[in-house]
């Protein structure tokens, strides 16, 4: 409506005039007058509010009873449905018990307790006088210790104080018995170790692996290993078969696959999630955690996502009985990078 230029800071000159002095400010009209509520004026409304509050408290009592019905009347059997029912009754019982009290009290406060707004003065956190006293006190205390005049004491104390907490850090050394990063370089795989199915541990025949299929693989003997989970966290492998002509094999890796059957570490080189998704048509491996994508035809080179280096390949062959075996361990550390990886 009308002239909008008054809102514009550049054209109306408001910049120059605004907020310069108290005179140019509006007077504070003070607190608005109190507006009485229905319950303040009408005794029937007051009575009604009182009843409503009481009803809400009764609802809370019913809620508590409902909780105990859910707790004692429902016998847990082996189905999820009874568990869900009990959970529902406990939840709604607690909810009514709590909401009854809560809404009741708030309703009580809002309708029946005085609602006059009151102004209270603020005070300075401390007077300046106190600050001066505190300052002189601290200065005197420091003076009496003589720490400024005696640098020898000060410096030796500083040295001692810096060293004293070190045992508290050093004593944490035994949080781990083993601190050798070299354990990260080796897995259970070795020449002749059979590739077996995860989690059953049954060996895999080369003839079982048809083109387009994928196997989740663990080394033979993993299920009986002493540190099973730790070994598994490094040794899990994905096994897939492609047309041999789809594979771009780099020099030195010619005998790492067997008739187009390839095995790659399943541990993502980004931060270590299992790279569990295999896109059969595109021959891509995808990590579901952070979407690093590896191209199987290019020796699992990273083609998308936050990982930087390819999944390590496990060299494989077949043994006399036709079962797939590793011909060595991985040639580089599996999983996420670490400082000593090189």
């Amino acid at each position: 409506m009308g002239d909008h230029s008054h809102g514009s800071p550049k054209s109306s000159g408001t910049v120059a005039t605004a907020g310069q002095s108290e005179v140019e400010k509006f007077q504070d009209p003070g607190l608005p007058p109190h507006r009485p509520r229905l319950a303040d004026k009408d005794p029937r409304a007051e009575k009604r509010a009182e009843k409503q509050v009481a009803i809400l408290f009764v609802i809370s009592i019913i809620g508590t009873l409902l909780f105990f019905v859910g707790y004692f009347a429902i016998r847990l059997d082996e189905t999820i449905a009874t568990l869900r029912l009990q959970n529902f009754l406990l939840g709604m019982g607690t909810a009514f018990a709590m909401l009854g009290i809560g809404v009741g009290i708030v309703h009580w406060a809002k309708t029946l307790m005085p609602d006059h707004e009151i102004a209270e003065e603020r005070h300075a956190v401390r007077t300046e006088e106190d600050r001066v006293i505190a300052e002189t006190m601290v200065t005197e205390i420091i003076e009496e210790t003589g720490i400024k005049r005696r640098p020898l004491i000060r410096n030796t104390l500083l040295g001692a104080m810096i060293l004293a907490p070190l045992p508290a850090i050093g004593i944490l050394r035994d949080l781990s018995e083993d601190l050798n990063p070299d354990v990260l370089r080796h897995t259970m795989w070795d020449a002749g170790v059979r590739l077996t199915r995860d989690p059953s541990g049954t060996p895999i025949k080369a003839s079982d692996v048809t083109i387009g299929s994928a196997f989740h693989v663990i080394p033979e003997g993993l299920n009986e290993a002493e540190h099973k989970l730790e070994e598994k966290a490094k040794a899990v492998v994905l096994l897939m078969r492609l047309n041999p002509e789809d594979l771009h094999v780099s020099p030195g890796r010619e005998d790492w696959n067997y008739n187009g059957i390839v095995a790659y570490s399943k541990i993502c080189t980004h931060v270590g999630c299992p790279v569990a998704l295999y896109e059969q048509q595109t021959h891509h491996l995808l990590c579901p955690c952070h979407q690093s994508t590896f191209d199987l035809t290019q020796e699992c080179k990273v083609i998308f996502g936050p990982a930087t280096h390819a999944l390590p390949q496990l060299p494989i062959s077949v043994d006399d009985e036709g079962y797939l075996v590793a011909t060595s361990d991985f040639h580089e550390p599996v999983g996420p990078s670490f400082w000593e990886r090189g």
Partner: protein
Amino acid sequence: MSASTSSDTYQPKTNLGRVTNFVDTRVGGSSIVKEFGRKIFPDHWSFMFGEVALYTFVILLLSGTFLTLFFDPSMAHTQYDGSYVPLKGVEMSVAYASTLDISFDIRGGLFMRQLHHWSALLFVASVSVHMLRVFFTGAFRRPRELNWLVGCVLLILALAAGFTGYSLPDDLLSGNGLRIIDGVIKAIPLIGTYLSMLIFGGEFPGTAIVGRLYVMHILVVPALILLMIAIHLFMVVIHKHTQYPGPGRTETNVVGFPVGPVYAAKAGGFFFIVFGVVAVIAGNFQILPIWDYGPYDPSPVSAGTQPDWYIGFVDGALRLMPGVLWGFPFEYVIFGGFTLSLNVLLPALVPAGILFGLMFAWPWIERWVTKDTREHHILDRPRNAPFRTATGVAGVIWYCVMWAAASSDLIATHFLVSLNDVTYWLRALFFIGPIIGFIVTRRICLALQRKDREIVLHGRETGRIVRLPHGEFIEVHAPLNDYKLHRLVSFESPEVQPAEPDANGKISGTEKLRGRLSRFFFEDRVAPVTPAELAAAHSHGGHDEVETAESKAEISSR
């Protein structure tokens, strides 16, 4: 007897008085009642976020204590023999088995687990929203800067509490979360590998981590949170609460309701309401059904997994970072044999570092730029501090882009778009989003301030269209009453503070920067209406619709 003469001269008349007398003569409780009994607290819905945070923390303590009675944080191997049939005979850790027992064999255990987890999500959410409220209203300004820092620390502790708790059940989901943490720790230069081995007690996953996280989760972190809450509330009492601008509210008073009885009743009742609402959620909505995921095993992983919401922004940053950009990998082998994984380090540390760094420093940054060192007890309406509101929104957008990135795969599958495209767009938004957010928000704030000026100068629109005798149609504008007027004109509009020379007559580099920032923040500003302007609007031609319309309207309505 002579030692207690002071108590003997006062003769209490009521039973309550006798109890008070007993307590007061022994521990001096009457001063506390005198201080707090009628202490004034301002009332506003936005002040309740902090209360929600406090109350959800109480619920966490209550439900958490129940859970500790049954949970066994051991990673020893066991075979499950509880009542959940599909997992019978499966090998798992004792921690996972005891979580199953809590869910299936302890009556009310599942309810308590869900209550605990939902409260935890709500706790971090309410802490965050409370901090946004404090930021956008400028409540962190002097004298409350230190309490803002305590709040920032509380947010970090809340994240720590959430994360340590999330990993305890030793299920597949949390195990993969730990594996990601392990990967991030290993990326730390020099000490990463050792740190990882120390934390996990050897190679990942080891058998130590759940017990160690458990101690953090039930002892160290909650104790620190309690300590910080105590300091936080203590400072609230010292400073007295801030209040929104309004008639009768000044920098030297505090207007509201006394603690006894109204405020105590409302705040106390609100605890039960929060508890009730979380109970409704916990009773009806399943969270973390660990029996569906199974025990932790390093080989499987489920697609579409998500961390709890508050860890999402870090996870999203990890996803957004390209490992290889235009042929250059973000991983180098340096010093002839050591690996530096910037593709992990940068996203894990830098965004969170910048967010928290700016959060911690903001009260001082603002003070430095505005040169405003006064105390502030009256809050800003966000529109009246366009620079701050715009900066805050830019930060929120930056956070939300990373947060959305943690769901990039779900966005792709849900909206049937390419996962790669989602990532590319989010990467672009990571840089452009905050800038657009800043510009748009500042424009919106300035526009709202202009609208306020319009309303003050020309009155509010009544919706009544009146036809004047000569045929012109006008809308009747009603002038504001004094109280509403005061609400719209009582704010400060900071001005540009140009760089000034120091005592030697030189303008230092930092002062130049400050001057530039000040210009950037306050160049565009809308000043509050002055009485003179209002008087002018009422009298001179072209702006007299208020009076003319009113008088004409009176004529026409007769």
